[in-house]
């Protein structure tokens, strides 16, 4: 897997959470490869390990076992500084819970990654405002999280993920909290950036969102049960979007019920 177009490569990743006496196996041997410029949707029931996988891909967490490489570098061998710089410059991460700073105005939230990229002053502020405008929040730059709706908060988080122009965007349920129209706008923005070369990995419950992706990976109980294509895996026929029948079948529906289920997990 030394092909230069391979962006991320996972070999037999496992993640085990130790909860007192019991062990929760969140990932049970996941091997995947994603090329530069791909547009991937990850689907699966709640608790199937999607977020866990995404956190490892985003260098926010470490696998219990297995090898994870990004651009041919093994994440386990990188220093804290190198990991931080990769998170800052290469990866944009949209969290399932928005994870905004309490009591800071929207433009400050968006500016944060720039600070750690050594962009400061009015240049940083301007770019933050520009990115906020891209997600349709130009008029909300001075609003604090508590003054914004859930959908607006999510868009602030998206602007923050995009502000440093990453080459890889990881989004955990980015449209979950958005109404259909703004969800559509955000996806359109993602896809525009994708056209310009951004690699997109989106976790979703929404069938329509999944159908727009070039490749759909389905998870269940910590393993990948189907993969419609991608590096090393031939696209298993299917339609123009490369979505195979089993993948479609595994998509939860109706969507609304799964959303509620997800909320219950988050609260617990």
């Amino acid at each position, binding site marked *: 897997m030394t092909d230069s177009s391979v962006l991320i490569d996972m070999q037999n990743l496992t993640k085990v959470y130790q909860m007192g006496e019991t062990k929760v196996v969140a990932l049970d041997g996941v091997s995947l490869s994603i090329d530069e410029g791909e547009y991937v949707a990850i689907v699966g029931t709640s608790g199937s390990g999607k977020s866990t996988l995404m*956190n490892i891909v*985003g260098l*926010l*967490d*470490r696998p219990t076992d297995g090898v994870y490489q990004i651009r041919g570098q093994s994440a386990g061998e990188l220093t*804290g*500084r190198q990991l*931080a*710089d990769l*998170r*800052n*410059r290469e990866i944009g*991460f949209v*969290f399932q819970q928005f*994870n905004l*700073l*309490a*009591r*800071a105005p929207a433009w*400050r939230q968006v500016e*944060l*990654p720039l*600070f*750690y*990229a050594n962009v*400061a002053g009015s240049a940083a502020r301007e770019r933050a405002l520009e990115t906020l405008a891209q997600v349709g929040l130009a008029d909300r730059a001075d609003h604090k999280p508590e003054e914004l709706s859930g959908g607006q908060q999510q868009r602030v988080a998206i602007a*923050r993920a995009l502000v*440093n122009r990453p080459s890889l965007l990881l989004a955990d349920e980015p449209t979950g909290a958005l109404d259909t129209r703004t969800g559509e706008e955000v996806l359109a923005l993602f896809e525009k950036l994708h056209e310009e070369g951004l690699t997109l990995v989106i976790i979703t419950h929404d069938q329509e969102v999944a159908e727009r992706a070039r490749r759909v990976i389905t998870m269940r109980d910590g393993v990948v049960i189907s993969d419609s294509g991608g590096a090393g895996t031939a696209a298993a026929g299917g339609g123009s979007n490369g979505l195979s029948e089993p993948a479609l079948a595994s998509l939860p529906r109706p969507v609304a019920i799964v959303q509620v289920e997800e909320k219950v997990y988050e609260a617990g």
Partner: protein
Amino acid sequence: MKLVRYFPVAVSSIRANKMRASLTMLGIIIGVAAVLIILGVGRGASEDILGEVASQGTTRLTISPRTGSNGDSAGSSVETLTMGDVRTLSDPAFHPDVRQVAPQYGGSIQVVAGNENTRARVTGTTAAYADVHKLEIAEGRFLTEDEITQMSSVIVIGTTVATDLFGRTQVVGESVRISGEPFTVVGVLEESGNAGFGSNDDSGFIPIGVAHGRVFNVPRYRGEYVVTSISADAVSEERVDAAEQQIEQTLRLRHGLGADDDSDFSISTQASLLDTIGSVTSTLTLLLSSIAAISLLVGGIGIMNIMLVSVTERTKEIGLRKALGAHTSDVLLQFLVESLVLTLLGGLIGIAISYGAAALVSRIPGFPIDVLIGIDALVMALGVSAGCGLVFGLYPAMRATRLDPIVALRYE
């Protein structure tokens, strides 16, 4: 290290959580202000006493009869300090370092003027007393040499005596009676403004011969009137010890004491008094310092509480910052600067409050002491408070930076 870079981050973080910031600062403000005021009071009190002692002259020696130190009981011992001793000590040939000598014989006695009367400490002495004791005269003058030798019936009184008898202090030329004998007031002393130590406000001074012969019933020793004490003035501060030795030698000789005999008198100097006061005030300072340390501790615990309460929130914040690309050093420096800003601000407010309190106290008329805030106390209070702020401010940061970002983000 570009510490300034973190300043805006720290400031906006402080502004974003004003409640937490002001509670943290409150701990520092209380700690710093309490310590500075407590130590300032202690310092003010000791300076006040030392100043009072110093103002009475540091060259003075006081010779007192020693009573009860030879195993005899105080009451039964014979007093052996006499006018003969005073005359001998007045000879500069044997006492080159003694400038002046003033005997005293006195006691508490009724002083009468018209229908008014009051008890005063009336002391018989000589003209030299005013100089040796650095007395200041408000009205008239002190006793003169002539009045001493002629045993004139004249008196110099303190302000309390004057106002008790006449209701005013301009009483030169008025007449008072002591033991049925009339005295003309020739002078009134300056009010000492200090009700306690070294005050002469309730005193009266008359010629020593008059005290011995007409006012008090004074015993004699070997044909000479005894005195209650003798004050002597050394020629300079450096010669106080030499003067003490000369006086001791003369008195031991005159009292016929052998080499093994204990002296039947004692000599104390202002310097030895200053030493005694110094050790008393340093004990006092130690006591006050421990109270100050406790209040610093209380302030510190306050800071710690706030910091610990905010740990969860801060841990999440650190997780987020790391997820967005912060290096460990970025996080630590941000927290360091934030703590510094808070502690310095709190410290400055604390200092301002303590100086305000000191200024307020100095305005209170008749308040006996000033609150003196020393640089050392200032540095200590600021240092300890800032230390608390730093330690407890950095604590969540240190802990959270060791976690993977996602673990810190999920921290409850």
